[in-house]
C-alpha cells in the first residue's frame, strides 16, 4: 500500500469480513488446514483464514504472521494461538492450537509406531532414504528462496550474519543457545546502527 493512501478502515477495499468464529469452528478450521498442509501449513492457513472464511484481511494476516515469525518456535503454532485468542480469548487460542496439532500428532504417532515395528524392513529403508534425499533438496531450495531478497537488496551485513550463523551451527556444530545468545544481540545492534545511518 502506498504511504499516502487513506487508512484501510476508511477505504475498506477488501471484501466484508464474516462474523468471528466459534470455538468449534476454530478447532475444525485449523484441523483442516493442518491436515491439508503437506510440507508446510502456512499456505493453507492463509487460504483458510483469508480466502475461505474471511476472518482476516490479507494485511491483518501478514501482520499477524510477521509477529509469529519473529517469535521463537514453530511459526504456524504461534499463529494458531495468536489468531484464536484474538477472537475468543484464551479458550480460542487453545481451540486453534488443539485443532492444528491434535489430528496430525495422532497420525504422526501412528507412523512412529509403524516405523518402530517395520523400520528395519529393507524396502521401507530404501524408500525412506529416497524420500529424505528429496526432502533435503526441498529444504535447501527454501533456503535459497529466502536468501534471494537479501541478495537482490545487496544486504551485505545480512549475508555476513547469515554466513556466520551457518558456520557456527552447521560446520562448528556449536550449541544453539550459546550461538543465539551472541548472534541475536549482535545482529540487532548492527541492524539498529545501519538503519540509523541510513536515516541520517
Amino acid at each position, binding site marked *: 500500500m502506498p504511504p499516502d493512501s487513506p487508512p484501510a478502515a476508511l477505504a475498506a477495499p477488501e471484501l466484508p469480513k464474516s462474523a468471528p468464529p466459534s470455538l468449534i469452528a476454530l478447532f475444525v478450521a485449523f484441523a483442516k488446514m493442518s491436515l491439508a498442509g503437506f510440507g508446510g501449513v502456512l499456505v493453507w492457513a492463509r487460504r483458510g483464514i483469508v480466502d475461505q472464511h474471511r476472518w482476516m484481511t490479507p494485511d491483518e494476516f501478514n501482520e499477524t504472521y510477521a509477529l509469529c515469525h519473529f517469535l521463537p*518456535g514453530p511459526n504456524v503454532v504461534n499463529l494458531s494461538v495468536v489468531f484464536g485468542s484474538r477472537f475468543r480469548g484464551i479458550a480460542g487460542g487453545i481451540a486453534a492450537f488443539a485443532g492444528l496439532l491434535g489430528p496430525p500428532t495422532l497420525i504422526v504417532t501412528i507412523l512412529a509406531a509403524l516405523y518402530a515395528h517395520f523400520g528395519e524392513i529393507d524396502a521401507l529403508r530404501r524408500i525412506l532414504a*529416497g524420500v529424505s*534425499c528429496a526432502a533435503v533438496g526441498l529444504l535447501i531450495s527454501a533456503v535459497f528462496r529466502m536468501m534471494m531478497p537479501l541478495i537482490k537488496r545487496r544486504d551485505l551485513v545480512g549475508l555476513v550474519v547469515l554466513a556466520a550463523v551457518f558456520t557456527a551451527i552447521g560446520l562448528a556444530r556449536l550449541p544453539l543457545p550459546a550461538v543465539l545468545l551472541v548472534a541475536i544481540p549482535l545482529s540487532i545492534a548492527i541492524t539498529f546502527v545501519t538503519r540509523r545511518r541510513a536515516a541520517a
Partner: protein
Amino acid sequence: MNSEGNPIWTLAWTFGLMSLFAVGGANAAIPEMHRVAVDVQHWMTDKQFADVFAISQMSPGPNVLIVTLIGYSVAGLAGALVATLAMCVPTAVLAYFVSRLLTRSSHSRWPAIIQAALVPLSIGLMGASGLILALTSDRTWAAALVTAVAAVLAFATRLNPLWLLLAGGCLGFAGVI
C-alpha cells in the same frame, strides 16, 4: 538411551528449552535436534534421524512434528506426547502474551528492527539444517544428485513438493540411492 534419570523429563526440558530458542521455526532447529538426539543423548543413529526427518516431511501437519517422532523413539506414546507439547506450549504461551502486548503499543519501531535482525539468522540456521541433513542422508553420489535435482526443481518450478518426495521414494525403492 540415558539410563540415569527419567527419559520423559529429559525430553520435556530439552524440547521445552529448544522451543524458546527455535528462531525461524522448526526447520531451523533441526541442527540442534540432531546434536541433542544423535550426538549428546544417543537417542538415535544418523540413519534413524534421516528417516524421522523423511517421515515428518511426508506427513500432514506442521514440520515441528519431527519432535513427535523423536519422542516416540525415546519413550513410546508418552514420549511422543511430551516432546510435542514441550516443543509447542512454551512458545505458544509466549506468543499469546507478546501479541497482547504489541496490540497495545503497535507504534514502536522495535518489532520491525528485531524482525529484520532475525531474518538472516533464521536463514543461516535453515542453511545449517540443510547441510547437516544432506550429510546424514546423502551417503552416495546418486543420493546427492537426487537432493541437488530436487533442490533445483523446487527452486525453479511451482511443482507440488509432494511429487518430488514421491519421486525420491520411488528412486529409493528401485535401489538407485
